């Protein structure tokens, strides 16, 4: 087991899930409650990583990170470095790549909140912020948690984008999934098998928690 890759993967996934919690909740609230006609356009953009080949996304990110673009030059001026082939670059890529895995369960959670309850809260004098914080968020929390956990798990498992944007630099961009690929290339099937098994068990456990939580809250609904 490559513990360096393990630690790097854990750090990447935790950071990504954290950032997606902060960005994902407002985005999901907006998608759920906005009346704008054109919001489907943004929804489609956010959903792109679900169907786009990771290499395509990775290629565009790699180009965007280079000093041929405004973003690349801006980041270089700010930090003196580039986003390509760095851990920071991986974080930015993972946030974009895992966005739908965070936002879609959150939207489902918000849509599941009975509109009547929101109406009731408003007739009781609640302003928008109180409705969100005391009614919508607490009732949608299984969806929020699912979004956070899925974005974490999805980041742990990402391969194509990491390889395109991060390359394979030990301690900086070599995650567990890249490590497995390396081991197979080196014909070390025993090591690859071990790492793969850890990832498999991790993913299964996480999904059990997600489905278990959703089952438990379903039981909380009024009779």
């Amino acid at each position: 087991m490559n513990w360096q890759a393990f630690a790097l993967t854990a750090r990447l996934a935790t950071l990504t899930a954290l950032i997606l919690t902060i960005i994902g909740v407002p985005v999901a609230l907006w998608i759920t409650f906005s009346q704008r006609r054109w919001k489907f356009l943004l929804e489609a953009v956010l959903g792109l990583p679900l169907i786009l080949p990771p290499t395509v996304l990775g290629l565009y990110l790699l180009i965007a990170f280079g000093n041929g673009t405004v973003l690349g030059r801006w980041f270089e001026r700010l930090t003196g470095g580039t986003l390509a082939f760095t851990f920071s670059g991986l974080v930015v890529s993972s946030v974009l790549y895992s966005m739908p895995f965070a936002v879609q369960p959150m939207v489902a959670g918000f849509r599941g909140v009975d509109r009547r309850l929101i109406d009731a809260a408003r007739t009781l004098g609640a302003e928008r912020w109180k409705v969100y914080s005391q009614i919508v968020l607490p009732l949608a929390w299984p969806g929020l948690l699912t979004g956070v956990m899925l974005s974490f798990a999805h980041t742990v498992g990402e391969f194509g984008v990491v390889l395109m944007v991060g390359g394979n630099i030990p301690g900086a961009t070599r995650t567990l999934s890249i490590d497995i690929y390396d081991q197979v290339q080196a014909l070390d099937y025993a090591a690859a098998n071990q790492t793969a098994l850890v990832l498999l068990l991790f993913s299964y456990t996480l999904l059990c928690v997600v489905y278990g939580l959703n089952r438990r809250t379903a039981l909380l609904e009024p009779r």
Partner: protein
Amino acid sequence: MTDPQISGLMSGLQLELKKTFSSKRLHRFSLDVKFSLPPGVTVIFGPSGSGKTTILQCLAGLTTPDEGAISVGSEVLFDSRRNINLPPQQRRVGYVFQDLALFPHMTAADNVAFGIRSNGDQRTRLVRDILERFHITHLSGHRPNEISGGQRQRVALARALVTNPRLLLLDEPFSALDDDLKLAIIGDLKQWLAQNSIPVLLVTHDRSEASLLGERMLLMKDGSVVGQ
């Protein structure tokens, strides 16, 4: 206490509204009503689809009429000509929904406390008083899914009344209860109304309930008031 006739003029409900709904599936439906009501319980009675709930939604600010005006006493809640349309959270209109819409993740006491603006001791006292008045003090720590249908009605009423509304709307809240329970709850409500003179609009499609509960009755059919 104010003289009831004077307070009636001061706090009565004036309403005049028009709203047209059209969709491909449903036939066109127009609501066109005008009435004024003194404080006390008025029953709106009519078949389902006659526009009863839509009136309540317009009064609460959850639906916007195409045109018209709504005022309670001297307070204008909606006036299409003067471009006034207070949002629901500023109308102080109590609304007990057909399915009650109690917050499932909160206890009875927290449900009741939700709409109270004051904090600390006064908040605690208001909750305690209204729970006592509706005989649900012993349920204060229970969530809605842990109490009976009649008890849930009481919590919903208490939640709406504790905010001291200027108008109370009841959308068939008692339809699932037997007559004894209905009368007991409406008795508690009428006691509260004796001290707080506000108009109450109760919607029902059940004739016996209409005659049981109301002091006045409005008959609705196809979006208009056809009798009083």
